[in-house]
């Protein structure tokens, strides 16, 4: 049995949950069921949303101490869930929240944790997991040691949410957990304003990203027009954010966010390796650059060698016609 841990906040399911489910389906051998657990204060809607997709039985775990995330409460609750269900694998999306509590959960249970997994070879007990090392320079193939359950977190974008095999609507069962509120050592404040405003580019389907070739802050508007016409998020390579032309939270690359949208349009980005590591997992990469030797073309699926100030308005025109 494979247990997937869904992530939700205030009733909104994190898209990465579907990616973890897709990974679970890749991992599950013939006939091995997948179950999904969702934790929170009230999780009826998210549990129904997952159940409707028919990927497996859904376990709703509701507790007043889970309404606001704390690593102590989630670890306590997850430990009880895992003990009761006794899965072979516990799959989690490699989100900030998972990074926060999964190591503690694994340590409490004295079980192996394989983090940031980008691929799975084989299935069932014989499965091995691929995970990056040295900032993605190397990929290691690892097999968790010891007794199951094994905990595995799945890198954002490594599996496709739309590749989840759906079936007939499944059942939601609720499970109760015991959490001693006085044993929770963290008292979270309200989320910072920064965090509330921060864009999570990893959730975007389409991204238009600008680099030094945009030349001036005024020209950012050209890229924003394209983003609006495409329904895309705007992002940038490092120099743009360094100049303050776009906020730092929109920076893609080794010192910014790592993204894997369906479509990534790189405008005037030369493709320094620091940028490439943050976006090379994108499904389709389109690069527009004046310099035909720019390294961005080595990873691009479609390349346009040309002046972005001519090309981009032309694309916007066509899109607006449609």
């Amino acid at each position, binding site marked *: 049995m494979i247990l997937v841990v869904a992530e939700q906040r205030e009733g909104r399911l994190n898209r990465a949950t579907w990616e973890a489910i897709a990974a679970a389906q890749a991992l599950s051998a013939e006939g091995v069921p997948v179950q999904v657990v969702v934790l929170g204060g009230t999780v009826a809607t998210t549990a129904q949303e997952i159940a409707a997709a028919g990927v497996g039985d859904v376990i709703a775990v509701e507790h007043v101490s889970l309404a606001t995330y704390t690593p102590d409460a989630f670890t306590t609750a997850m430990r009880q869930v895992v003990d009761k269900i006794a899965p072979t694998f516990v799959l989690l999306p490699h989100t900030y929240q998972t990074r926060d509590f999964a190591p503690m959960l694994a340590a409490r249970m004295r079980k192996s944790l394989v983090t940031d997994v980008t691929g799975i070879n084989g299935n069932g007990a014989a499965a091995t997991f691929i995970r990056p090392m*040295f*900032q993605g*320079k190397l990929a290691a193939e690892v097999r968790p040691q010891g007794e199951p359950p094994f905990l595995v977190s799945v890198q954002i974008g490594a599996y496709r949410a739309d590749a989840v095999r759906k079936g007939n609507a499944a059942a939601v069962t609720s499970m109760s957990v015991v959490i001693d509120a006085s044993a929770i050592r963290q008292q979270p404040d309200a989320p*910072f304003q*920064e965090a509330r405003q921060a864009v999570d580019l990893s959730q975007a389907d389409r991204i238009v990203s600008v680099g030094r070739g945009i030349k*001036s802050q005024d020209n950012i508007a050209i890229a924003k027009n394209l983003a609006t016409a495409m329904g895309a998020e705007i992002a940038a390579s*490092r120099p743009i954010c*360094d100049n303050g032309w776009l906020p*730092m939270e929109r*920076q893609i690359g*080794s*010192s*910014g966010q790592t993204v894997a949208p369906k479509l990534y349009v790189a405008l005037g980005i030369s493709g*320094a*390796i*620091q940028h490439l*590591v943050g976006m090379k997992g994108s499904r389709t990469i389109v690069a527009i650059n004046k310099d035909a030797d720019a*390294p961005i073309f080595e990873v691009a699926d479609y390349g346009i060698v040309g002046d972005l100030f001519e090309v981009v308005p032309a694309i916007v025109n066509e899109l607006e016609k449609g």
Partner: protein
Amino acid sequence: MEVDVLIVGGGPAGLSAALRLAQLQTAQGGEPLSIAVLEKAREAGAHSLSGAVLDPSALRELIPDFRERGAPIAADVHADHVYFLTEHAKFEFPIIPPPLRNHGNHIISLNQFVRWLAEQVEAHGIDFFSGFAAQDVLMEGTRILGVRTGDRGISRHGEQKPTFEPGVDITAKITIFCDGVRGNLTKELLRRLPLGADRAPQQFAVGLKELWDIPPGRVAAGTVIHTLGYPLAEEQFGGAFIYAMSDRHLSLGFVVGLDYSDPQFDPHMAFNRFKQHPFIAALLGDGQMVRYGAKALPEGGWNTIPRTYMDGGLIAGDAGGFLNSMRLKGIHLAMRTGMLAAEAAFDAIRANDTSAASLKRYQDKIDASPVRSELYPVRNVHQAFGHGLWAGLAFSGVSLLTGGWWPVELQGEAGHTRMHRLPPGRGSGAVNEPASNATSVDRRLTFDKLTNVHYSGTAHEEDQPSHLLVHTEVCSTICGPEYGHPCVRFCPANVYEIMREADGTPRLQINASNCVHCKTCDIMDPYAVITWVPPEGGGPQYNGM
């Protein structure tokens, strides 16, 4: 926090000092000393970069059973070669100059070696605080009280972020400064006390290094190769090293004296040109670069070493300039001076007198040790290279015959003062003007700095103030016409870039998060207006370097 002995810097010197203190404690008993080591890297060894060929003399004394304890030695040296390179050819020196004979030495990764040394230290229960950089020296008059660590959680605009944590004061009876080449605290001590008043100015070089995986069968493990000549001009100090850690793993580096005169010269391009030499290109062909790094090294020798003892303070290792530039070795001297500093500190604390007069015993120990017998005879050699390669080589030869005797002490000068101004009208042309020694970059054999930086594993929190302080803004005014913005070229990590304002005025952009902590800018800037201070965490990740 209060300790008996505070060691600033967890490199070979600092860790050897810590280990020696623990050993003295065990051997002599008495009231146990509290010892702490501060290290700016998040893990021991992450910022340690060297060739490296280790002379095991100090290690053998510190840890006699180092092999049994699993010291990470890549290979024992079994062959030395020295070549003089011209643009297309190489000429092997028929005899290996004695200082470059490495029989009995070991090829190591300094990163792994330091990590192992830290394990030995921690096994003695010594507190090793990694990820903490000392920002300021705490002083009262001429007495060292300890250090203050840097604040954390300051935004790039200088405001406190929600994660703000103020720095911590750590006081100690004795502080041993092992903050490495051009250490930020030692630099401060030199200025305030002044410890270098009657000494010759320190002279530096910068070393750039790559690790390569190559197809087997080209060079045997344990081979040590040094080259002189191409691509450097006769008047430039420097050369290259190639150490075969195994028959598939090469440590390859290029050292350039930070006293070159052409402001448009770029040490990183010299390294690229070196790799394009047919001899080197053949060695590396079909191989893969897997790691990159850069670090300055103190080359000046004995006459440039400052006073290393003060009230409540000692200086050891590269911070003090303990490096033998003729043998291209400093790790054993760092270890040895760390050990001697530990012995001096231990005795001074037991004698309940940590004044400079009491700590002078450190200098006496150095004078009676192999440190002096190794460095004193070659004290003028590096300065002789200031007159060019042939003068330097000739002087080294004479030095060997006379045991270092020479009628006068040769005077060196701080390297940045040797940089020539550009002829009128030549500077400030294009943005980020190419170097005078520019060569092609194919991203297979040769690399641009940005790609190389990626392979240094360097990462910093982006939202913090720049840790490279430019005290006087010269970029938009005099630097362009006078030197053509040499920072963009001497920095091996693309930290400095010159952008143009709409009206064409040059503006300096500091990509501080690229910094590999090599200190070149702090040393080589011709106006001496750049100061390197420790950032909030981060830095390179020199695994295997």
